[in-house]
Each structure stands twice: as structure tokens, then as C-alpha cells.
């Protein structure tokens, strides 16, 4: 089944009729994702890309039975869109929007605690189960079907990893872009755990960045499973100066514990195959898998 999304996922697009929403909804439909409609307030009752448009997420759920939502709403309104999706009972919300105020995300994440909704992102490329379902903005063709899972804070690094994995003769089960903001819905550990318990995933690529403590937490979890599946890890930002934000809002070295070196050390101690160069992800994964056989 891979994880999070599959051919049975019924997907709605929040911010459906906007430029971004329209472009990526088209791409998702072309990929084969079952997009059942979209939400744009005050455009309910119309159709867009031959799919129904609803005023609210609740209406969309009622009419289409949607269980996954992808959000392309502008930053000022995105946290509200996340809470609306959760309130309507959507099981998986993927928020692509970059630039949401941190205080908005703190409130949205707190709101989700009392619901059964899982949030991926924000500021992420989304989730893809190879050759089955794409709920995101990634170029689908890079993700050849296979049995390697990817968890990554970065978009283009996810593509880089997927491409290297494919060139190494392997393929992808599900790739989860968790996002580069300081407050995100699903942590590295939670995403790794999903793949660790997935029958269709044999090994995991885990890509982190400077800032925060999520990779260390994930590494300790991997160790606690007795390193059930091989994990190849990379941390971007080994050369980043302290105290500077490197593009992603969450990518900033605050103290000794959130440097790339500190994270790589903990990951190596926990039995993760840590690569220093991003060019070695595919090669190292091929070796780790070979050891398995």
C-alpha cells in the first residue's frame, strides 16, 4: 500500500482556481491522482478543470467523500485553510504554501491535536506514492516505482535523492516532503516511522537540514527499532554560518546541537548510513541494500 496516499485517495484542492492551484491540479490529474474537486470560497457551484468547485471543505467532503486535501492558499490564509480541512474531517492535509507566519502555525498545530487529521508541511513539495498518486508539486517522472522511502525537509533535494536512487537501479515507494518551516505538521521521526512500518518499503532515505532537533529524534527512533531497515541520511548546511537563515525559515543554527555536524554525529551513532556529500545518496543506498541481501 505504500503510505499516506494511493490510487484510492480522493483529493481536493484548496485554492483550486488560483494560478498555483490550477497549474498543479492539472499536473496531478495528468499523473493519475484522483482529484475529485476543489474549494474556492464564493465560487461554489461552478466547475474548474472539469471538476466541481465548492465554497467550503465541508461541502466538498459531503459531496465527494474526499479524504485528502492539498493547500495552495496564500500565506495569510493558509493556517485557516488547514484548520478548515481538519474541521471537515479530512484525514490527510498537505500544505504547500511557503511563508506562513510562525504564530499562525503554532495555533494551527495546536488545533490539530484534538482531531484525527495528519498535516504534511507547510512549505513542502508534498507526498508522492510512485506511479500511483501524487499530492504535491514534484516532477512525477523522476519517481520510478520501487521499495525505497524518502523523508525530506527540502523539495529539490528530494528530487535529487529520487533521481540518484533510480540511477542506482532502485525505485521509490513513497516520498514524503515534510517541509522546511520551524513548525511542521509531521516530524521527521513520524514520517520515518510510517515508512519503517510499511510492508512495501525496504529502506529509507532521510534528508535533514540545520536547525531544530527533529533529525536527532528520528535517529534515536531508528535505533530503537533495532535498525529494522537501513536508513541513509544526509544533512544539508554543513557549511552554513551560525545565526543566518538559509532560505528555509527553519534552517538556522541556533546552538551547538542543531548544527549539521552534531546531527550527523548522532545519526551515525544510531546506525544510520550518513553521507557527507549529497552526490553519494544513491550509491550509498545501493550498498546498504546490497548488504541486506
Amino acid at each position, binding site marked *: 500500500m505504500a503510505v499516506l496516499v494511493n490510487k484510492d485517495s480522493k483529493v481536493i484542492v484548496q485554492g483550486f482556481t488560483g494560478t498555483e492551484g490550477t497549474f498543479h491540479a492539472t499536473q496531478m490529474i495528468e499523473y493519475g491522482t484522483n482529484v475529485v474537486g476543489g474549494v474556492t470560497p464564493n465560487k461554489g457551484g461552478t466547475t474548474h478543470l472539469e471538476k466541481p468547485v465548492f465554497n467550503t471543505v465541508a461541502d466538498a467532503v459531503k459531496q465527494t467523500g474526499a479524504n485528502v486535501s492539498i493547500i495552495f492558499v496564500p500565506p495569510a490564509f493558509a493556517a485557516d485553510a488547514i484548520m478548515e480541512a481538519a474541521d471537515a474531517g479530512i484525514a490527510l492535509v498537505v500544505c504547500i504554501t511557503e511563508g506562513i507566519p510562525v504564530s499562525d502555525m*503554532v495555533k494551527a498545530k495546536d488545533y490539530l491535536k484534538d482531531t484525527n487529521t495528519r498535516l504534511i508541511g507547510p512549505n513542502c513539495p508534498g507526498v508522492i506514492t510512485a506511479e500511483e498518486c501524487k499530492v504535491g*508539486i514534484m*516532477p512525477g517522472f523522476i519517481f520510478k516505482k520501487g521499495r525505497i522511502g524518502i523523508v525530506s525537509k527540502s*523539495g529539490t533535494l528530494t528530487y535529487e535523492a529520487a533521481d540518484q536512487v533510480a*540511477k542506482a537501479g532502485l525505485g521509490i515507494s513513497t516520498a514524503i516532503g515534510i517541509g522546511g518551516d520551524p513548525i511542521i505538521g509531521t516530524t521527521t521521526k513520524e514520517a520515518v516511522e510510517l515508512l519503517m512500518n510499511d510492508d512495501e518499503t525496504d529502506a529509507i532515505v532521510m534528508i535533514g537540514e540545520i536547525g531544530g532537533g527533529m533529525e536527532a529524534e528520528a535517529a534515536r527512533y531508528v535505533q530503537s527499532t533495532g535498525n529494522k531497515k537501513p536508513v541513509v541520511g544526509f544533512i544539508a548546511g554543513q557549511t552554513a554560518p551560525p545565526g543566518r537563515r538559509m532560505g*528555509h*525559515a527553519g534552517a538556522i543554527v541556533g546552538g551547538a546541537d542543531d548544527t549539521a555536524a552534531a546531527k550527523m554525529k548522532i545519526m551515525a551513532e544510531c546506525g544510520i548510513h550518513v553521507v*557527507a556529500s549529497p552526490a*553519494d545518496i544513491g550509491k550509498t543506498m545501493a550498498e546498504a541494500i546490497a548488504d541486506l541481501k
Partner: protein
Amino acid sequence: MNLHEYQAKELLKKYNVPVQEGIACNTPGEAEEAYRQIKTQYNSKFAVVKAQIHAGGRGKGSIVGKDQRGVAVAKSAEDVLEIAKNLLGGTLVTIQTGPAGKVVNKILVAQDVYYEGPNPVKEFYLSVLMDRAKGQNVIMYSTEGGMNIEDVAHDTPELIFKEWVHPGGPLQGFQARKIAFNLGLSGEAFKNCVKFVTNLYNAFVGLDCDMLEINPLFKTSDDKIIAVDCKMNVDENALMRHPDVAALRDISEEDPTEVEAGKFNLNFVKLDGNVGCMVNGAGLAMATMDMIKLSGGEPANFLDVGGTANATTVEAGFRIIMKDPKVKAILINIFGGIVRCDRVAQGVIDAYQSIGNIEIPIIVRLQGTNADVAKKLIDESGLKVQSAILLSEAAALVNKAVA
């Protein structure tokens, strides 16, 4: 976005947070006038003159070529004039500015808070920030004020207290009282402290701060609680709802090349190395910097061109990177997804021809959609551009370029 002390204090006053009062000045003349005003208005025996720069350690830092600290006490109008002349236009070097220092364009002439009174004065530390792991704001405070808080945390962690605040709500009354008790306050000072932290937390939330640090938090001899210094950093993502705060941005404090890059929507951070890079995506940009280092070079910058790498953005990127004479080579690393590599390649060729004479080697690594068409375009362009498809090939080319 960082704010100056005088700006942060003005914002705090709007939230009824008491501060050490002062007047921001641009010239020695203004400073002299401010000194007179401070003396009469607050009955101060002397005034404190503080350089306004975006860096800490001002009190211990000094002005290049002069025997002048970044924070100084002035006991007369002559003192103020002299200090102001030394500070304004001078370059202040502190442990946080690095050896290059920062030019002082503004000074704050502030009241004396150490005036005599019935009770002893005390200095505390208090800051508010977001705890990423808990997803909650946390108030961190200590009885050890005026010192470097990292040292306190390291040497005497038992003297640092933390109070987490539930998202969406205010600081509760019992929490504010707990803070005042833990700081050892009683009577009027206790009541004033409860008001201070309650209002300060409202300011943190109301202004969408990333970080708000009061060091020292000060108890005067007549039991007032005031902010003597204030560091405030506001969430840039939230500036859209605070146009008044956004207007306080001081671009003279920022690297000019970073400011220029911002005009082209390029996310640029200046570094110190010899290999420039231009990449799409923040994570891949950091990873590319790391790869430059592993290939024997040193990254000269971080540059994320985002999802639209076209001729205009590439040309702007080239020009910004080449302003640094230390740059020996430039690596362009684009993973084309939605953006087609052949379009990016054409952008590189157009930008190259528009600039004309580029003396340093350019290495272009294009992977993803139409990567092979792109490589052919570059290879047949006749320009001094080396192309690669695999990241490992790009690394080898960087290695050759810096050797």
C-alpha cells in the same frame, strides 16, 4: 527582521511595557539637546549614550581607532558631545559584529536608571521565544541579569527558569506571578513585575516576534520594573500584517549585495569562500555549498533562485556573485522539475552573452526535465561554460577549477 533598541522600546511602550526612556539622535547636536531634555524630564544626574547597531556586546565593544566604548556614561553636555562625535560615523566592533564591525548611524541618549532610592537595584534576564520542539512560546528568565545568558546556562543551569505558554492564549496570571516570585520580588516590585511580563508577552504575540530579549530587566531603587535594553526580532512572514513594523527596516544594517539580490527575489547570503553558486531550492543550495567544500573549495554564497530560473534571474545572480573578487568559479546547480532544463540553459547562455566578458570558469549542472537537451545547448554554445548532468560530475569540475 531585526530592530534597533530604540525602535523596539518605542514598540514596547505601545503595549504599556515600561522602558528606560531615551531619545534617538542622528547628530552630536541632537544628542546635546537630548541630554538637556533627559536631565530635566527624568531628573537624571547623568545620561547613557548607546550606539544603535544590529549586534550585541556594545558595552564591551569599541570604535575602531578611538578609545570609545559602544555604550558610555555622559556626565555633562561636553561629555555627550564628545561621545556622540566618537560614535556617530564610527565603526563599532563587538564580539557579535566580527572584525569588520558596524557603522554607527544613530545613538540613543537614555536616562540614568541607577538613581538612589529606598531599596537596592537589581538586574534580571528575561526573554521570550518559540520552542520549536514543543510548538509553544517559552519565557526564559533568570536572576542573573546583565550577563551573557549562554554562560549562565552553561555554568549555572539551575538559575535559568522556563515558563511555556499555551498557544493562542495570553500568559496566565499564575504564570506571571510564578515568574515574579522566582525572581525573588515582593511588594510593589512584585506587582510591577507581574504587569511587566504580562504586557511583554502581549507585545511578543501582538507584534509577531520571533525573539524578544530584555537584558537587563531592571528593578529600580523605587521598585519599578523596566526594560533597560531590548533585542527584538520580528517574524518576516508576519510583516504583511504589520506595515508599521515593516517600515522600521534599516537596510544600512544589511549586506548591500543581499539587499540587491532581494530586489530580484533571490534569496542570497554572503559567505567568505571562493566558489559562487546558484541553485534552485534552499535545501539543494545548502547541499551544493557542502559539496563545494568537499571538493576542495569554499562556498562564497548561498543563493536560492527559486522556481523561476530564467535569463533575468540568472543574469542578476551572475552579477551579484561576481561582485566578490575572491570568487574563482561559479557553479550553477539546477534540478529541473516543473522548470525545464533547456529553458534554464538558454537563460544561462543569454545572461552570459549579455554580461560579455566573464573571466572565471562557469560550471553548469542541469538535471531533470530535458537535461540532455540542455547539456547539448550549453556544449554547442561556444561559451566557456562546462556542463555536467550528475552531481558527482559537477563536484569533479569544481575540484578542477579550484586546484
